[in-house]
């Protein structure tokens, strides 16, 4: 009896998912969870796969992910740091930059904006380009400005990746230098 009920629930659930086309929504949510999984290989796969899910939640997740990378954070130069810790931090930073770069590329493909990067979409879906670290504050400012204008309170304004006239300036970096 219990197995019959389980089968009926399974069939009804599958039918519900098929009729209301819920599989893209479920897949998108799974990819967003994978994006924040803290495992770089899984994050790389999720970032690439999110290109097929140009939804609002996917775009918001990418914006949050890029912001959480916090590449402008620099350690206090007065605090002594052991060499192993320094090497580990540098490795972590290179990995974060690479992930943020990939996420930015995906966001560019989803939104059609360049956000001040050199990413370009070629025919047949290929893309090329890179995002240097010194450009990062400007790119981050553009992404945040676009996200606020598009998903923020009020109507969908779609003003573009930056305010007209001048590119957005990020907040002043903490003492001790900028991104580098």
């Amino acid at each position: 009896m219990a197995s019959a009920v389980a089968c009926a629930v399974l069939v009804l659930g599958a039918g519900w998912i098929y009729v209301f086309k819920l599989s893209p929504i479920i897949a998108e949510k799974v990819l967003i969870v994978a994006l924040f999984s803290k495992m770089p290989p899984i994050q790389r796969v999720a970032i690439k796969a999110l290109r097929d899910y140009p939804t609002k939640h996917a775009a918001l997740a990418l914006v949050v992910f890029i912001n959480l990378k916090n590449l402008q954070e620099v350690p206090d130069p007065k605090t002594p740091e052991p060499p192993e810790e320094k090497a580990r931090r540098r490795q972590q930073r290179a990995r974060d930059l690479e992930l943020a770069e990939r996420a930015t590329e995906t966001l560019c493909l989803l939104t059609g904006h360049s956000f001040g990067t050199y990413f370009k979409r070629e025919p047949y879906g290929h893309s090329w380009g890179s995002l240097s670290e010194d450009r990062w504050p400007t790119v981050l400012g553009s992404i945040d400005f676009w996200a606020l204008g598009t998903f923020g309170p009020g109507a969908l304004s779609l003003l573009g990746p930056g305010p007209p006239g001048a590119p957005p300036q990020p907040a002043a970096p903490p003492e001790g230098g900028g991104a580098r």
Partner: protein
Amino acid sequence: MKRAAFWVVFLVMAGAAFAYFWRVNDPLRNNPYILPLWVKYNVRMLAHPHPAVAHGAWLELWNLYFTKWGAYQLFPEHVANAAPISFLIERQSFPRGGDHAPAMEAFFARNQPIYYKTERVYCQTAGEALLAIMYREKKWAVDYQGDWQAWWQANRKHYD
């Protein structure tokens, strides 16, 4: 054994016959009892978060609107639907193509998210997406001026 074989053959043949008659008669678009449900389902799908799915529903509604009177009559029931859409609808201009083909500035859905780079977002709700299907330059008494509901209020008496 014979009984099982009979049921297998019977079910296969019944399934094949059902599929054949479904394809030939296309009841989703032709049956007067199923068509309203199909329109309602596609209106609901307009609010699907994935733009490709919602875009497919919009194209199906576009097809129904211009080919089935049953669907044409059902559209006004859904124009107040305020569910947000996830795909982009853009305006496209067509030059005059002859005496019987006037210039047209129609709205067409794109398989892109609504936040994709564009000059202007014309439609944000499912009701507005339906009004974009219904809109035809020169057909209505008042042209679209940027507010879909105002346009509909000014033109609804001409809808028949």
